[in-house]
């Protein structure tokens, strides 16, 4: 077993929330794809897996509720974790996911690095890319939840708002879902896992920890800060068990394969959709 010193990046609660997010996201993606491609054989085949259009819709709705529940749970956890006495430092400090000016500078520096014009940015605990991924959920889930809720209860919605709002809600629901799914597959899955430094799998969200050496390469400012504050020991973690690693490798690759399949088949079959 690997005995190199490791550092904890994600606690059990966050990892479980993330697994719940993966599961609900994939169920919603597959049932939603089946519904969107209803007019094609491929869409029908997907819906048949869930017992047809009606039961796929029901599963889609319940998975949506579950995802919203997980989202609200996460917000509650974040509110609980916030240091309310030192709110400014807690919100805009280096341990926070709130975007700061530094993120824009690092983004520019990274672009310059592509062309060899600058050194790689010395990232803190969260880099701009991770922050964008995190906040994308914050606009995606509420938008999908509210528009989805309107479409589940159209008659009730039409009492509060004009009925044509349902057309707009469906458009937003579909467009945001397409954006989220394609972004997650292309950027989050492929670039997250298949870069040179992360291949074959970026394990940190499952194992929760990363070797100090690896963290020092990716997030040197964070490690330097921890060393300076003598907190490196506090955050030390054990390496994940082999059986657990096997499990999350299988899980991770299953999700990536499913995502790739949906992306390619969805792109191909999109020419046969004629609904508006």
């Amino acid at each position: 077993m690997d005995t190199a010193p490791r550092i904890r990046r994600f606690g059990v609660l966050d990892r479980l929330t993330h697994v719940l997010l993966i599961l609900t996201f994939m169920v919603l993606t597959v049932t939603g794809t089946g519904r969107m491609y209803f007019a094609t054989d491929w869409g029908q085949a997907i819906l048949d897996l869930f017992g047809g259009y009606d039961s796929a819709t029901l599963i889609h709705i319940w998975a949506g509720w579950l995802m919203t529940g997980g989202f609200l749970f996460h917000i509650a956890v974040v509110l609980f974790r916030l240091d309310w006495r030192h709110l400014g430092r807690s919100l805009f400090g280096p341990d926070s996911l709130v975007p700061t000016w530094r993120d824009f500078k690092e983004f520019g520096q990274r672009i310059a690095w592509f062309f060899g014009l600058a050194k790689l940015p010395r990232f803190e605990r969260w880099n701009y890319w991770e922050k964008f991924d995190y906040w994308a959920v914050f606009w995606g889930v509420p938008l999908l939840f509210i528009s989805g809720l309107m479409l589940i209860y159209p008659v009730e919605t039409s009492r509060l708002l004009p009925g044509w709002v349902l057309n707009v809600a469906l458009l937003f629901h579909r467009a945001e879902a397409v954006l989220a799914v394609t972004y997650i597959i292309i950027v989050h899955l492929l670039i997250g896992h298949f870069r040179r430094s992360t291949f074959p799998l970026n394990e940190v969200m499952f194992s929760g920890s990363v070797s100090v050496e690896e963290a020092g390469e990716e997030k040197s400012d964070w490690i330097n800060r921890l060393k300076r504050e003598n907190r490196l020991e506090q955050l030390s973690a054990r390496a994940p068990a082999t059986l657990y690693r096997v499990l999350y490798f299988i899980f991770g690759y299953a999700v990536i394969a499913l995502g790739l399949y949906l992306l390619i088949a969805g792109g191909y079959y999109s020419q046969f959709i004629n609904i508006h």
Partner: protein
Amino acid sequence: MRVAWLFALVLLAPQLAWAQQYSADRYATTNAAAGTDDATAAVRRYRDQLASSGYYETSDARNMLPYGPTETDAYRRAAQADAHAGLGDYSHRKCVACHEQSAANLHTIRANNTCRQCHGPEPIASVTHYFSRLNPVRRHAYVCAKCHEGAGASFASYVVHEPLPSSSEARMAFPALFYSDRLMFWLIVGVFLIFIPHSVGWWIREWFVKKKPEV
């Protein structure tokens, strides 16, 4: 050859001439038999010939300006009690033979509805016509509520035959949909315009790193 033309004219001419009167008569007899015919001639003229804004009696016909022979015909049909009156070979055709794109909506494709389930049996009045079951004054009760229990007039403003959201037609007829579509389109394009080159650049660049950055 001339005989054939004459024959065609004889076949077509009476049909075109009588059709309008025919459908109006049909309604007149039905209404008279039911004893619901209005006493005032003005209202009857209105009912037979004009499109309704949905608020009949108070405000009425839309100001329809035809731009050419095709539009004239379409506008005239939009005001008829029998929208298909006088169309040749009408009874042998399917709705989608002419209204091809109208079947590409969620009610038809997903809920497997037929045209007649909403538009009703012959004669099919124009949607805005006083007689039509799809007239906004009664659409929610006569059509929507058959499946969507509790549907009100607001619910009935859901656009079943939605224009393509990115089309100029949508921009004119349904601006909220058009601009929502533009917003989401540019959001998607913007996100990928930043993150695809970023990801590809990152992916390629990492292969050229020889040294590890200093800690």
